[in-house]
């Protein structure tokens, strides 16, 4: 585990399969390249072109067979019954079906909006938060339980949040910005004890941590293929049998009536293949990422003062590091790191000029929010990439601090908290 530069020459056997012409990709939580083996399998499957909904000829039957084979493959990866898997267009749609669908089934049964209470956190993905917001505007009660400063859900606060009207808890398993891993098993037990449904957004989890649905009490779980080296445009929703849920989109009643629309069979093939591959590579990748993460943390903290890792350092996936580099603005740092593709929580890197609500929610000092970088390693990251990256970060941070008025102030002992800023 004590990685030293130069003594880890093993590269994953999938290296060199994807070309990275625009620099070293370190943004594997935004999306992943579709693995060439997955692309190939999808490509080959285009000769099966029937509509799985066509029941009058072999083209339709073959299409159905391929869809069901894919469903079974995927179900095996997450260890549930194929009947509990429905295909969607991605995790955004899965989250919406889960949250809106469960609520709608109660509304359809005559329950008043104000008598429906759901619980989530402030650090969820927008696909969850914006859906909850829309539900609030319909009169549904939504409670946002606080997370601790390390980004982990406060189980006591969660327990207190339940009311006798609580219908659903929706929590992301692995947070996309922080990489922290929530205690889903414990949350599942709590929900089961309270008789409350649990929806888990596992978009960032598959391929990174073990997902075994027979081992946890979860009613709904969202997935997205492009997060695990599969194609964009397909996801899945696990719906535990007997879960009461209504559709939000209407039509030909495909996918047990929960998700109407022609089933995109090539994408199903891709999702299943990608999930299998991701699960097969998972533990080796976990080990590799753990070494890389340790190398980055050890070396950056040794060489640079005033850097802070956001999110728990233990309860996180090793793939993700979210770091605040004091006195250095995140976007400028990314521009210095021209050879790398990264993302930042800085307002300057967003289209909205709003800094990260996630960092805000875990209480990151407002002076530090703009100094954060998200570094996400993945399947095609090599040790060499990591060694170079660390050297380049150190150099870039030092250069930017040289031109930072805040760094001057800090060196001369000024407490930035006491400064009266001229803001407009």
């Amino acid at each position, binding site marked *: 585990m004590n990685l030293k530069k130069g003594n880890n020459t093993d590269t994953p056997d999938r290296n060199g399969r994807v070309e990275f012409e625009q620099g070293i990709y370190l943004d594997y939580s935004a999306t992943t390249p579709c693995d060439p083996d997955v692309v190939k399998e999808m490509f080959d499957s285009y000769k099966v072109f029937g509509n799985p909904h066509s029941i009058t000829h072999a083209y339709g039957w073959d299409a159905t067979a391929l869809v069901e084979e894919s469903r079974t493959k995927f179900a095996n990866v997450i260890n549930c019954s194929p009947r509990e898997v429905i295909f969607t267009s991605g995790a955004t749609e899965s989250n919406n079906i889960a949250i809106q669908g469960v609520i709608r089934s109660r509304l359809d049964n005559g329950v008043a909006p104000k008598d429906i209470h759901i619980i989530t956190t402030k650090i969820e993905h927008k696909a969850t938060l914006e859906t909850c917001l829309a539900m609030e505007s319909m009169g549904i009660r939504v409670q946002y339980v606080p997370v601790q400063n390390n980004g982990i859900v406060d189980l006591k606060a969660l327990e207190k949040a339940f009311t006798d009207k609580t219908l659903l808890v929706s929590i992301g398993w692995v947070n996309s910005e922080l990489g922290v891993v929530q205690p889903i098993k414990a949350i599942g037990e709590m929900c089961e004890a309270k008789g409350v449904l649990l929806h888990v957004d596992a978009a960032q989890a598959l391929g990174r941590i073990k997902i075994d649905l027979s081992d946890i009490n979860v009613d709904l779980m969202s997935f997205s293929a492009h997060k695990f080296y599969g194609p964009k445009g397909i996801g899945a929703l696990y719906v535990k049998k007997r879960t009461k849920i209504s559709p939000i989109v209407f039509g030909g009643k495909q996918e047990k009536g929960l998700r109407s629309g022609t089933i995109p069979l090539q994408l199903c093939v891709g999702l299943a293949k990608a999930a299998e591959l991701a699960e097969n590579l998972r533990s080796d990748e976990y080990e590799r990422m753990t070494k890389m993460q340790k190398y980055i943390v050890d070396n950056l903290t040794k060489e640079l003062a005033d850097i802070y890792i956001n999110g728990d350092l233990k309860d996180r996936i090793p793939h993700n590091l979210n770091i605040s580099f004091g*006195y*250095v*603005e*995140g*976007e*400028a740092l*990314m*521009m210095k790191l021209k050879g790398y593709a990264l993302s*930042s929580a*800085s*307002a*300057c*890197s967003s*289209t909205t*000029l709003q*800094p990260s609500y996630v960092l805000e929610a875990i209480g990151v000092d*407002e*002076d530090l*929010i*703009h100094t954060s970088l998200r570094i996400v390693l993945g399947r095609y990251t090599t040790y060499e990439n990591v060694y170079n990256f660390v050297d380049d970060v150190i150099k870039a941070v030092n250069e930017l601090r*040289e*031109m*930072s*008025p*805040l*760094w*001057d102030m800090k060196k001369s002992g000024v407490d*930035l908290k006491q400064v009266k*800023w*001229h*803001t*407009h």
Partner: protein
Amino acid sequence: MHKYNDKINAMFENPVNVGSLDENDPNVGVGFVGSPACGDVLKIFIKVDDEDRIVDVKFKTFGCGSAIASSAVLTQKVMGLTLDEAKKITNKEIADELALPPIKTHCSVLAEEAILDAIYDLLKKRKVCKVDQTG
């Protein structure tokens, strides 16, 4: 970070006039605007000669690429101007020079504010000095 044009990139990568001047020099004015919480802090130092002409200018900036580029362009623009001329610099001139994307206009606004603040600082300093001298 947005996809910037070459001008912004070039100015960010090789910014001119980074540094600082002696704040205690009576001919040096310091502009200091922005805040860490807003994501940009700009500090500009101008030094004038006897005719109030800017003869040296330096900056330090905490901020995004546009903020750094805007600061550098500002220093280029004010160099050699009289204070009266420098006062008239608008954010638009800076934004146009860099072809800043609209979402980054505030960086040029901050630059404009910085030079005004520096001039103000200089004038304030002199007034204090004058008061001292005549008092």
